[in-house]
């Protein structure tokens, strides 16, 4: 039978994939996508907890809605920045951002 732990493990795997992408991706947009994966794993956790164990179940889903809203805004700002830097440099590779030490 499928229980809480199954969902949590899926979340953990998603989190790990996101973290791996965050650490190893060169392209800024790819890095942003990896972060989205991590945030999704958080949401899976929250919704799973609110379904299976939470005393205040609604709070978990409210939390994940907030996270979705913020994540959407984050992508918008991140892409605007990516576009800005692309206009200046013709690249969005994180590795090539060497004005400052990474």
């Amino acid at each position, binding site marked *: 039978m499928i229980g809480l732990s199954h969902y*949590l493990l899926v*979340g953990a795997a998603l*989190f790990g994939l*996101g973290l791996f992408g*965050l650490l190893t991706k060169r392209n*800024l947009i790819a*890095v*942003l996508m990896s*972060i989205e994966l*991590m*945030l999704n*794993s*958080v949401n899976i*956790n*929250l919704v799973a*907890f609110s379904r299976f*164990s*939470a*005393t*205040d179940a609604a*709070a*978990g889903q*409210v*939390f994940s809605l*907030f*996270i979705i809203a*913020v994540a959407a*805004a*984050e992508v918008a*700002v*991140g892409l605007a*920045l*990516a576009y*800005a*830097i692309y206009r*200046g*440099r013709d690249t969005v590779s*994180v590795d090539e*951002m060497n*004005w*400052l*030490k*990474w």
Partner: protein
Amino acid sequence: MNFDALMLEMAVALLALLILVADLLMEPGQSRRKLGYLAIAGLTGLLLVSLGRYGMQGAFFNGLFLQDDYALFFKQTFLIGAILVCLFSLDTVDNLPHSRAEFYVLLLFAVVGMMILASANDLITLYVGIELMTFSFFILVGYVLCETKSTEAAIKYLVLASAASAVMLYGMSLLFGIAGQLSYNALAKGLTASPALIVGGVMVLSGFAFKIAAPPFHMWAPDVYEGAPIPVTALLAMGSKAAGFAAMVRIFAEVFPGTGYPWPLLLLLLSGAAMLVGNLAAIPQTNLKRMLAYSSVAQAGYLLTGMLSGGFAGVKGVLFYLMIYVFANVGAFAVLTAVSRHRNGETIGDIAGLSRKAPVLAVVMTVSLLSMAGIPPLAGFVGKFFLFSSAIDAGYLWIAVLGFVLSMVSVYYYLNVVKSMYLGAPADDRPFEIAMPVRVTAVFAMAATLAMGVYPGPLSQLAETAAKTVFK
């Protein structure tokens, strides 16, 4: 809905919207300085109003939003910081290529975020407060888009801050899983010792460590400080740190103590690492913004010692120190703004000979830096006194000794700046122009640093009253 509880936050938000609307009504080419004055006047008015709000205790929105002296003290810290930053950024903003009014708007949004953080009593409010502050900073950091450095710093900040948020959120989700609720009060009751608590707690702590720039999550600070426009750096240095501590102290005072794990030990490690890394890495820096960034890492370390004892004495030290850190920081960055306007650079070579060109600014810089180092009779000394004595009192003698020794080591790199200002030859012969607001801010910050060092009584009492409200 209780509007009174949210009064300060809403007022700042309305002020921001007012500026946004006023900007639309103004001619495109017109100077936006008036809007800056409007922001300063509005914030000052609110600061005065807030002075009368001490002693108002209460939990609103089902206990998720707290109104207490602790939150109020932090809100005043943010207001003071924002007022001073606005004041010395007037000229910087005038010279922006575009979107001048939006600068103030975003700055005010950041302040709203910090204020929410100070009052947050549940994880959602905490998260949203953090994000509102951080989002405003993403944009402010990247504000000078003609400078690739600025954009790059913004991207780094965005990526790293979002990643830190994701890690923190994951930790929060585990805490939610254990306790089943999100408010601090419920968490305090519901958190039971379990592996998930360890992992979740560490992840939440990592998120905070990022906000206060404590190692190993401090790597963003030097780059972002260097890339961002100076006023933004100033606000980031004190605001992000103060807001991070505001939320962190509350969690560590209300949620974690009952869980049976030795959380202070983690804070101890974090604090020692921050002091060591910050002070040692600051030594070879030649760019003053980077130097101040590493110095702010070290300050985070000092501040963390105040949380070790888990009592109000240490928290009082944290509050006191954050307030005076605002003044020291504003002093240093205001001087740096003037230097940067003149030389278009912020290295130790650019500041050379400042004592001949602008003796007042050189004195302000010296006083601010020495206050950060904790040399009496400046305020930083009293702050460190409170922090370290609370640590010793709680039995953590060696971290205090380390703190004392490293703050004296920090004098080395601060004095290198002083040496450059007093001994170095000026790099050019052009007359040094100081805008009036910058001069006023700098002198005011220095006077405050001196006054609170010689007579810390009122501020320390205020901090003590505020700290006591967290420990009910």
